[in-house]
């Protein structure tokens, strides 16, 4: 069996597997019925999204939270992974793993209890800041694991060579190690972004009065059935991002 063809085939099947549900939700975003049974073409759910200030505001909040927390988590996590490279930091490493294993609801409840206790002594309430802090904290573990896997495949001699040539530790890290790490950092940041953008359980626990996110709006509908307007906004996001991906690919090739 031809290896290349086999790999290509599995990859094609994986992309199909990943994208079929997207096609389904795009199709249903044009359905005139509010149920998942086709009734006829309609743009009414798109009109509903554009008129729904709450959903737009929540989407905006989600983007801000994901963006800010990803930048912080990627920076902090990459530094930490570098710090643990070669020289172990067992306590931090162990507690990062514990944070991964802990069920989300427990993380959420513990943070809520902590903030409530802390804010008892301060004139502060739950809000965007608590959500962002929570997201940074749980994203760090993901970043560290992905970046550390990349570091494992690197050999340290390059950095040592730079040091021998008179670079200080900071320059060696910034000029030699970090550029080599970039694909790992990007992969980690992508992971952190999507986890943050889609998180419901922890977010709902630590969110305050001004920090409703898109997942909170969507899960809020679950009790009475999710409105196809959610399909519409998902379709807008997915198609928008998809176009961006392909367009940036085109630009790079020119």
């Amino acid at each position: 069996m031809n290896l290349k063809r086999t790999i290509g085939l599995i990859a094609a099947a994986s992309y199909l597997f990943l994208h079929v549900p997207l096609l389904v939700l795009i199709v249903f975003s044009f359905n005139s019925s509010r149920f998942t049974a086709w009734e006829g073409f309609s743009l009414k759910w798109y009109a509903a999204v554009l008129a729904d200030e709450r959903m737009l505001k929540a989407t905006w909040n989600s983007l801000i939270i994901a963006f800010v927390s990803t930048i912080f988590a990627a920076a902090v996590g990459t530094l930490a992974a570098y710090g643990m490279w070669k020289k172990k930091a067992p306590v931090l490493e162990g507690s990062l793993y514990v944070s991964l294993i802990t069920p989300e609801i427990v993380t959420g409840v513990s943070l809520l209890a902590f903030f409530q206790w802390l804010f008892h002594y301060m004139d502060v309430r739950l809000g965007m800041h608590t959500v962002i802090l929570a997201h940074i904290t749980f994203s760090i573990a993901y970043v560290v694991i992905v970046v550390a896997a990349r570091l494992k495949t690197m050999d340290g001699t390059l950095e040592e060579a730079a040091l021998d040539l008179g670079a200080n530790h900071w320059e060696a890290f910034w000029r030699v190690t970090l550029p080599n790490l970039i694909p790992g950092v990007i992969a980690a940041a992508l992971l952190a972004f999507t986890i943050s953008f889609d998180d419901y359980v922890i977010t709902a626990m630590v969110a305050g009065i001004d920090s409703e996110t898109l997942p909170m709006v969507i899960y809020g509908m679950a009790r009475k059935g999710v409105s196809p307007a959610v399909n519409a906004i998902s379709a807008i996001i997915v198609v928008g991002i998809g176009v961006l991906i392909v367009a940036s690919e085109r630009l790079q090739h020119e």
Partner: protein
Amino acid sequence: MRRRTFFLGLSGLAGCTRGKRRLNVFNWSDYIGPNTVPRFEFEFDCEVRYHVYESNEEMLAKVFSGNSGWDVVFPSNYYVGPMAQTQLLAKLNHSKLGNINNLDARLRNPVWDKDLEWSVPYMWGAAGIAYTTKHEPAPARWADLWHESFKGRITMLDDAAETLGAALKKLGLPLNTADPEHLGKAKDELIRQKPLVRAYLNAEARDQLVAGDLLACQTWATTASQAIEAAKHLAFVFPAEGFSVYSDCAVILRESNEQELAHQFINYLLRAPVAAAIVNHSKTATANGAARAMLAPVLRDNQVLYPPESVLERGEWFAPLPPGAQQLRDRMWTEIKSA
């Protein structure tokens, strides 16, 4: 200190305008009309932050600390007593709630809050059986959901209180029982029924009932009335053995610094035209009797949302449970689902 200014800076960014009175309202999703809040803001010259939650527990986790920032929240009736006893609620001042007489007579003196000392009923609802009329015979009792003819084509709710409740009612036992023997019998009934059950689902069952995957499901009247509106071959029945009823109620938190405005808001929600506009949008059952007369005829005469008195007599209100019973029920529910 620096940390504190950091926090304050961020919450400042989130945008709060000073000067105007501000009310923070935390309600169930889909429980308000599109103009309800803006009109209140205009009339009372204030700002309202209106947010929604999905379960009582989510709201309780927030307000339990006593410094959540919310002023008005909407617990279900069986949490009103516990919240009052844990000092979370402010006593209502009826002189500021002139419209309270608009309430349905049935809800003016409810079992969970005799003189509406703490709470004002807002919406209510009940669970029963939604089914397709294409299947004969039509279910009329909970016991019918144990029939072989429904095998693999029914769902029960994914909700311990409701599902155990259905089994208890089938056995002729009280809905809120704490008796281990009663609960054990109900558990056995549900384990016996499990091979017939396709899944334990809440609102997700609706689409499958409309599409024809399911012949019948245990569901709430509000969910069922949405499905019936879309597919004429569907119907809903309040089971003969009796059924569960709940009411979501407006309460004012003790921590609130806006007691006056909070009363004004609840009194505003009690106005018949306001309540009618809300329900015309949300398509749920309002606790406001005066508003019902003003509803669109399809809603006003909807026998699923507003069953006649003779049917309602069979309903039983959910009530708070003693801690031991709650733990027992949870373990039994886990056992049923993993059986």
